[in-house]
């Protein structure tokens, strides 16, 4: 795979995860939120998922499904990295091992 394809795969997963988080945040019934904020989050979530979808279709046009699908493994990885970078959560040793395994697996699949 080219560097561009790998970059696009990672970018697509980023938009997918961002969309999922925005959806969950917008639909959360336990958290008091203004209706306006909910609608805004839902709107950005839909836009984010639309970007993911067309990036994904573009990737499918050029590469094997069995080659790009494993990039879905980035989904939990991005969430954990987001918790570490944005929410300043401390990662366990297990998480770091997981990050290493997923990254190593993707290198094997993409080559």
């Amino acid at each position, binding site marked *: 795979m080219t560097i561009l394809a790998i970059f*696009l795969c990672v970018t697509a997963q980023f938009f997918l995860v961002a969309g999922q*988080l925005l959806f*969950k*945040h917008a639909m*959360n019934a336990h958290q008091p939120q203004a209706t306006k904020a909910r609608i805004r989050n839902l709107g950005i979530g839909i836009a984010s998922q639309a970007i993911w979808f*067309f*990036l*994904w*279709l*573009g*990737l*499918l*046009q*050029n590469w*094997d*499904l*069995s*080659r790009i*699908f*494993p990039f*879905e*493994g980035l989904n*939990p*990885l991005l*969430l*954990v990295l987001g*918790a570490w970078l944005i929410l300043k*959560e401390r*990662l*366990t040793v*297990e*998480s770091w*091992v*997981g*990050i*290493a*395994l*997923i*990254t*190593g*697996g*993707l*290198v*094997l*699949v*993409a*080559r």
Partner: protein
Amino acid sequence: MTDVTVGPPASRPAVMRTFLNPYLQIVIGALLDTAGEILLKKGANAVPTAGGAGGIFGVTPLASGWTWIGIVSYVLSLVSWLYVLRSVPLSVAFPLINVVHVFVPVGASIFLHERVMPKRWLGISLIILGVFAIIKPLIKAEERL
């Protein structure tokens, strides 16, 4: 002593109750997701890529019927997943739904005749192991959200 009726409501036929079993739905959802991915790939293969910078986004596959059946299958898998999450804890459902990482490459080799080399299977195995190592704190975070 009063009589107490126990067990699931008998109002639904047995077939329907089996179909609505959340664990069966995890399998059905995974199969629908796999079918969706394979159909999207068929749709993407059916039309030429758009030229220029627009080629990064796959808009042209929308002209293929395969893509639309794929979208329907994908949406159905999402409905099934939301149904599963109503009764199964995410800490149980999430590890199970990871079978798609095996289903999709197997489906791609059977239906799309893609060649999945041993090295790629090794990579897929590492990714699945990594996901399992990561999910515990992730599930806690997701349930908080």
